[in-house]
């Protein structure tokens, strides 16, 4: 560890007014900070570039003031006849728009302050966009100087920005405090200039630390990790900040003692040691481990989307072997529910959409594809093969069900965006029309990627709908994609990868699949690992899970790297990955916070609860009440007992599923599945005909248990086991008995008891 960095952090802590830190606590925190304090960038020496240029002095003002933003002059059509390139990525075009177009009236060389550009921007003449610049501001003066010095056009000889440096690059932050960042641009001529007041900033966790227009980072009461992006021109740099959880030396001592007691166990695990390291850095101690009953419920829902039955719970509790958790996990992974539940997840991601494909011949497509996915998962098809078979699919849906992916994903942009989001964890949508504002992706990256799919051919069956029935996917002999600005024909090239060889007979998609699934691919394994981590641990190491960027880094990079390497080494064995995740220490923690980790949402120091998803919840109701849901759709009705997680597509009417957030499968983003609470959900629980039907069905559990001759205490115990997966506490038992004994109508008594347990958060959430 770098000693000078220690001193920087040290003085910052000492100057903090939040508390008096003792050297003891400082030592505890700083010893634990090797990865956090990556070290500031080395200072770059060089003369300050003084010549005023369009690219370095004017375009950044337009960006900072929002003139060239997507809602204003930066949109494709411009605004009121004045069009700028989005975020200033095309200085040449912007120069032409400002200086040449509109009869040159936008600038006045004779009286620069009377330039229309400035008069509009300051609101001196009416301007629909308000007054983004104030007269006399730095930005105003920069533009004025440029005009006054002759409005020199950008030229190839102008210095360009080769990189941007943020100082510090990382550091500890104190809650309720602020810290000024310094941003410098390193220019192609070797000069370096301070662009702190010309850069654009963005925080990835504004709740934790916001950043203002001049790079002042402000923290509040929340604790955790934050990344602040600074952009100048096309170049981006980041500041990684951490607000530790410990507040007093006594707490630091206690946390450190607790972590020390866990060290032998956690350090021995290739996953857990990275968690431990981060907990040390952040001064946070994990919650207590969960008991067997809670673990079984949690892991059954997460692997099989299914609640454990009372018989399973009893058997699990009776099992005395030390490795019983892992053995039960193995068993869960072999159940058909595992394939059905994860099949549902993949059918969302792969947009296996039924809506719009409802003719009798089309309808079969989604069922075929969802069966194919399910079989692949059940057989634990290696993930590299799974992805390749989908991407390179040819033929008809009947011969090769993965071609159904090509039924939904039909055009250049859809190929690019779906593949990038689903398999590479990258949101590249922005780069269709302009350089990505927070990443390195350009339009060339986008259209090079699109060129991979240029030879996808389609032969229709007969077109009896907008989308042909029984379409056949094949590889055409030719086909190309042009760059929309330059018109150049693009060579197939994967994101950040090398161009594919030219004029080969091979399907470029096969080359894509090879590139993607090679051991060194930086995206593929990580994206799947992160997706699965989010599934089991409640939040991605990269969050959102499909928005990986240098400006949105993983919360624990070493952990993500370790898991990804292991996944590749296992030859993309998904079940093995699941075993690793559910066997991790973090997965086996209670969700209840302790005195040190309250408010933690990033370091996995406790289990993060989530509401059961729509299909899982509906099935859990059916299972607890022993009344299946009747699904209509397609021709007639699904077989009795079909579960919601087994439905082939989203085009099956079910209000319950819709109000609880079933996605329409319009995008490859898992975010399409909504988990926000809503009054409509509560009304569905309280008052829907479907729940009432399940409670009152003559063949249902409610009626059966009410007529069961056993004594009430035994029956109440079973009801609790069935709904909540645990036995009642003494108080709960007493309350339930009082209720059933007072209620003259036995059926109604058990209905109410069952309903009230089904409506608890304990039932509705996996926790």
């Amino acid at each position, binding site marked *: 560890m770098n000693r000078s960095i220690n001193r920087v952090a040290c003085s910052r802590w000492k100057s903090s007014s939040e508390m008096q830190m003792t050297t003891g606590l400082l030592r505890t925190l700083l010893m634990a900070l090797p990865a956090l304090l990556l070290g500031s960038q080395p200072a770059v020496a060089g003369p300050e570039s003084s010549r005023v240029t369009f690219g370095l002095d004017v375009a950044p003002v337009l960006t900072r003031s929002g003139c060239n933003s997507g809602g204003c002059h930066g949109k494709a059509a411009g605004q009121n006849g004045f069009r700028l390139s989005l975020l200033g990525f095309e200085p040449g075009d912007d120069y032409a728009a400002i200086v040449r177009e509109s009869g040159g009236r936008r600038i006045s060389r004779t009286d620069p302050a009377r330039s229309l550009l400035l008069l509009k921007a300051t609101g001196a003449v009416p301007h629909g966009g308000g007054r983004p610049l104030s007269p006399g501001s730095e930005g105003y003066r920069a533009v004025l100087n440029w005009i006054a010095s002759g409005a020199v056009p950008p030229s190839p000889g102008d210095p360009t920005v080769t990189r941007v440096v943020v100082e510090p690059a990382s550091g500890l932050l104190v809650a309720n405090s602020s810290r000024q960042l310094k941003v410098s641009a390193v220019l192609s001529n070797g000069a370096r200039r301070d662009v702190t007041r010309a850069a654009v900033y963005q925080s990835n966790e504004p*709740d934790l630390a916001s950043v203002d227009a001049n790079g002042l980072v402000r923290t509040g009461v929340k604790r955790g990790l934050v990344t602040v992006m600074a952009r100048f021109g096309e170049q981006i740099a980041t500041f990684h900040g951490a607000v530790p959880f410990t507040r007093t030396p006594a707490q630091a001592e206690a946390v450190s003692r607790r972590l020390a007691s866990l060290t032998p166990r956690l350090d021995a695990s290739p996953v857990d040691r990275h968690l431990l390291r981060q907990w040390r850095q952040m001064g946070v101690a994990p919650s207590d481990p969960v008991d067997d009953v809670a673990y079984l419920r949690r892991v059954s829902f997460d692997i099989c989307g299914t609640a454990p039955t009372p018989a399973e719970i009893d058997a699990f509790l009776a099992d005395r072997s030390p490795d019983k958790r892992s053995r039960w996990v193995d068993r869960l992974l072999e159940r058909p529910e595992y394939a059905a539940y994860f099949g549902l997840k993949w059918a969302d991601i792969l947009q296996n959409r039924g809506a719009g494909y409802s003719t009798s011949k089309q309808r079969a497509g989604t069922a075929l594809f969802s069966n194919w996915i399910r079989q692949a998962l059940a057989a634990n098809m290696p993930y590299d093969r799974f992805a390749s078979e989908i991407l390179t699919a040819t033929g008809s849906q009947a011969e090769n069900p993965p071609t159904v992916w090509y039924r939904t994903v039909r055009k250049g942009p859809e190929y690019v965006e779906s593949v990038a989001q689903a398999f590479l964890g990258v949101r590249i949508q922005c780069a269709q029309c302009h350089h990505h504002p927070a990443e390195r992706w350009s339009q060339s990256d986008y259209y090079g990627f699109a060129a991979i799919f240029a030879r996808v051919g389609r032969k229709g069956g007969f077109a009896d709908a907008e989308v042909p029935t029984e379409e056949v996917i094949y590889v055409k002999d030719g086909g190309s994609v042009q760059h929309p600005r330059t018109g150049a024909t693009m060579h197939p090239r994967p994101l950040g990868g090398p161009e594919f060889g030219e004029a080969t007979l091979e399907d470029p998609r096969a080359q894509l699949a090879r590139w993607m699934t090679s051991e060194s691919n930086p995206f593929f394994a990580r994206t799947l690992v992160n997706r699965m981590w989010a599934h089991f641990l409640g939040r991605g190491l990269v969050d959102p899970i499909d928005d990986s960027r240098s400006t949105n880094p993983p919360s624990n990079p070493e952990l993500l790297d370790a898991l990804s390497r292991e996944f590749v080494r296992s030859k993309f064995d998904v079940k093995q990955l699941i075993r690793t995740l559910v066997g991790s220490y973090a997965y086996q923690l209670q969700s209840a916070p302790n005195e040190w980790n*309250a408010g933690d949402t990033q370091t996995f120091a406790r289990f993060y609860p989530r509401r059961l998803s729509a299909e899982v919840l509906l099935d859990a109701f059916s299972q607890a009440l022993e009344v299946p849901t009747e699904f209509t759709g397609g021709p007639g009705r699904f077989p009795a007992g079909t579960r919601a997680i087994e439905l082939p597509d989203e085009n099956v009417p079910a209000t319950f599923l819709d109000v609880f957030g079933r996605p329409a499968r319009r995008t490859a983003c898992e975010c399409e599945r909504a988990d926000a609470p809503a009054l409509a959900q509560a009304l569905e629980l309280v008052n829907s005909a479907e729940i009432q039907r399940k409670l009152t069905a003559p063949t249902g559990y409610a009626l059966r248990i009410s007529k069961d001759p056993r004594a009430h205490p035994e029956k109440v115990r079973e009801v609790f086991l069935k709904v909540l997966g645990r036995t009642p506490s003494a108080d709960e038992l007493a309350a339930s008995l009082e209720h059933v004994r007072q209620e003259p109508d036995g059926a109604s008594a058990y209905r109410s008891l069952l309903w009230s347990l089904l409506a608890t958060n304990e039932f509705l959430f996996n926790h």
Partner: protein
Amino acid sequence: MLTVTGESFRHCDGLTRRGFLQLGAPLLGLTLPELLQREAAAAEPARASGSGKSLIVFWTDGGLSQQDTYDMKPDSPADFRGMYRPISTAASGIQVGERCPVQARMMNKIALVRSVHHENGIHAPSAHWVLTGAFGPTLARNAAQKPSLGSVIARSLGSRRPQIPAYITIPKSEAFGYQGAVYLGKSYNPFEVGADPNAPNFEVPNLTLPKGLSTRELESRQALLKRFDTLRRDIDASGGMAGLDTFKAQALEMVAGDRMRSAFDLSREPAALRDRFGRHRYGQSALLARRLVEAGARVVNINTGNWDHHNDIAKGLEEHLPPLDRAIGTLVEDLSERGMLDDVIVYCAGEFGRTPRMNGNAGRDHWSEAFSVMLAGGGIQGGRVVGASEKNGGGVADRLVTPQDLLATIYGQLGIPLNTHYNDSAGRPVSIVGTGQPIHELL
């Protein structure tokens, strides 16, 4: 709920923010939902004694043209004047466009503000500005999202009756998502009706007790749920549990009573009155809003438009303006006839107005330099015009009014203390009105 006492505001449990911060770890460790729950619990008694007033908003999504409606410029050149003639109104000296005859008739009850101004011309951040009082997030501007006026009112005052949601949008929230609660907590998001009240089969699902469920059994379910729903709420930092708790309690009360169901039952209104409101989404939404407010809703937001008429504005206005005018005018009239107008504010606004001068496509573009909003009821004095735009439109000529001033006016009339602050998710107290001042000329 935060109550406000002079300079330093107090937390529900009597602590000042300073005291709160000084308490250290145990209390600092509270999660947001936990705080919200505490505050919600403490707020219950306050709600009962709170103001009896409500708000109905007509949101003109996309930006309504002020120069064709509330701020006519008959003496301007033709390309500014537009296609409509001005007409006189019941209030002497006030004119409006000829497609607003119903509001014209009610102008003694209606006030116009012709000098609203903010400094952005893009839909999303402008909508944010008008709905929340703060310039919103854009690509170039990394501002945090703020809660909408509906959510602020819902949080501050709650529903007037527990069976009715405090904040309802018809048919649903606008597309930018700026009509939500953000850091106030998910339970203050609007209840979305989700259907067109003018549709023949208009119905809000799950408001009727299903067959075989008696009120008595429902009560027993409710009592048991209270006993068993005891999972620690601090395990969830997402706000999901807290939100669902509120909604479950609300749903149970809603279903137990008849109030919500009957409020949504437009067939209980005389056909003649339904005709008067207009058999159009706007008219029936206005009538439904009145019924919901009568039943206890605090804020009903009706989303109208799209009014983003860059091309052929005449066509767009001919389609949308007469039903909007009829809905607003008839609502004011109906509230007044029922003696409810003093208790209900009617407010029509959008993210901005439209350019004073017609563009080359016979349309008008975005304009936030000076645009108009309409207000009535709830103590707002009718027959008044506040502020003026320049001769041909353009900038504000007199009495600039900001979106925060409008919020301050509305909050003040509803009885919300203007020095109320709510903590954002980073724990910083944020004023509900910023620098906004009530428009005293209207009061």
